[in-house]
């Protein structure tokens, strides 16, 4: 029992849940509007509020008023968000016209854009990084370009991309690509150029061919650095995809955040933001598993 407790880190998990419950409770309290009270209000004021739709006649108590549940100007509480989550996931794959897609479609769309851009950037980044890491000359030649390109926000490329590529989906993919390219290139080059001299000496003693050297020594030797680059790229791509989708207004969860804002559905905005958090969390734990598979202890 005690062993299980420690194995699954139940203590810290319980504390996490406790903190979550506390935060939700504080959120709930701070967003609950008090019941409507007519004290200190003139009849004219009450009539104005009724005409504005802020209050409605209480169906249970004749002559009394209550807050209009359909028009609450306060920030939505957790219950409203939970209702929104339930409503969205009870019918995640509906499609009503171009602007109203179920959250399932939106997630799949964003995941698709993310996966294509990220995987393509990872492959290109690792290849470029290995070449730069292996050749001092290539590093000297390309380094100025990398230093200039690296700090440019991927979103800054969007007007140029829209002008040249035009198709919104491909623009989003390219933004993800640009966001996840540089950290992988830099870390791979660092990992490859810092492989321990001993391993390379063994490879040269055993007269490995270029390919065998690459797959037996260089790639596994640089793997921990490459994976840490992939993780930085991953976060950077997830950060970039939100404004890209907002600006493009095509589809996707990032676009959904802006749509809900346009609808003034704050609960919907919170919901879409949470979806991003959950997506990042799940993808990151997958990446973590991959990272553990390729790392080694010296």
């Amino acid at each position, binding site marked *: 029992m005690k062993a299980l407790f420690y194995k699954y880190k139940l203590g810290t998990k319980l504390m996490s849940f406790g903190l979550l419950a506390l935060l939700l409770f504080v959120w709930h309290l701070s967003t609950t509007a008090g019941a409507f009270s007519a004290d200190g209000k003139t009849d004219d004021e009450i009539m104005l509020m009724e005409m504005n739709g802020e209050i409605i006649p209480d169906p249970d108590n004749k002559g009394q008023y209550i807050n209009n549940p359909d028009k609450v100007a306060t920030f939505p509480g957790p219950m409203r968000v939970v209702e929104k989550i339930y409503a969205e996931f009870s019918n995640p794959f509906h499609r009503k016209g171009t602007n109203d897609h179920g959250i399932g479609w939106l997630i799949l769309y964003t995941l698709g854009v993310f996966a294509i851009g990220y995987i393509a950037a990872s492959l290109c980044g690792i290849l470029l990084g290995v070449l730069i890491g292996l050749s001092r000359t290539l590093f000297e030649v390309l380094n100025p370009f990398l230093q200039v390109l690296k700090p440019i926000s991927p979103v800054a490329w969007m007007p140029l991309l829209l002008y040249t590529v035009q198709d919104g989906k491909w623009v989003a993919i390219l933004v993800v690509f640009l966001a996840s390219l540089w950290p992988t290139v830099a870390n791979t080059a660092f990992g490859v150029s810092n492989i*321990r001299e*001993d391993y390379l*000496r063994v490879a040269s*003693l*055993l*007269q*490995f061919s270029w390919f065998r050297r690459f797959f037996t020594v260089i790639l596994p*030797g640089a793997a921990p650095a490459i994976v840490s680059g992939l993780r930085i790229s991953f976060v950077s791509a997830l950060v970039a995809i939100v404004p890209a989708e907002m600006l493009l207004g095509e589809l996707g969860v990032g676009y959904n955040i802006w749509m809900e804002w346009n609808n003034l559905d704050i609960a919907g905005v919170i919901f879409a933001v949470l979806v991003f958090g959950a997506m990042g969390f799940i993808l990151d734990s997958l990446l973590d598993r991959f990272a553990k598979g390729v790392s*080694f202890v*010296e």
Partner: protein
Amino acid sequence: MTDSSNRKLAMRVDHVSKNFPVLSGSGNSTGDTFCVFQNVNFDVHEGEFISMVGHSGCGKSTLLNIMAGFDRPSSGGIIVDGKEVTEPGLDRMVVFQSFALMPWLTCFDNVRVAVRSAHPDWSSPEIDEHTQKYIDVMGLTGSEKKRPAMLSGGMRQRVGIARAFCVNPKVLLLDEPFAQIDALTRGVIQDELMTMWQKTNATVFMVTHDVDEAILLSDRIALMSNGPEAELAKIIDVNIPRPRTRQQMIESPEYTRVRNHILKFLISHQKNGTAPPEQNNSASTNSTSSAAGDSPQKVSV
């Protein structure tokens, strides 16, 4: 092994010198060079075990790197099998002080990559079988699937030795192979190395700091004077009959003679004042009794 002159030549070290560039404080080359060692000239015969002993800075390891092809001599050259050494190759395997095992490969695979390189025409089962043979000789049976990080230093160097022997190189180069292994294990692995050497008739060149290790294993011991501008001072024959055991070795008058000879040489070279100052402390035969009861006193130099 008393008369090695009529045996076949395995490796010729032909008037080898090595200069390094003198760097300025900022690490840039000043254009000047300083000579680490010069005019080192000796032959290694087939099946011979030869050790090189000398103070730090005399260029022993640099010479070994030149033999391996990791480094190039400034003048002179190394000839193995009638050809000058210009690059590393399977005919000159190295056992590294740092083991140099690939941490992402299992023990078995660390040896197997070498076998595969040496015999590209072999089938997979043949490669496995050959690998297993050397794993077994080095007492690694049962640890095949373990990664180097899970093994002690002694076990790791066993893998290193198996990897070096399994390709049957012309010359084996051992670069202070036992320096990172604890004293108790060291004796055991030295015995295993001796067994392996006798089984395979390998030619071995070893660099070491340990005088007793050199005497136990070697047919001849080369002594280097101090660097910079170190030279090969002399080569001593070790005429203790083989197969040797530690017990026999300590009792042999030859052991006492050779050991005293080497120690006198090393101490006299420390007192010349050319050695770095931190070594002067150990100049008075800093002998400590070894942990292994049956092994002779260790002298650290």
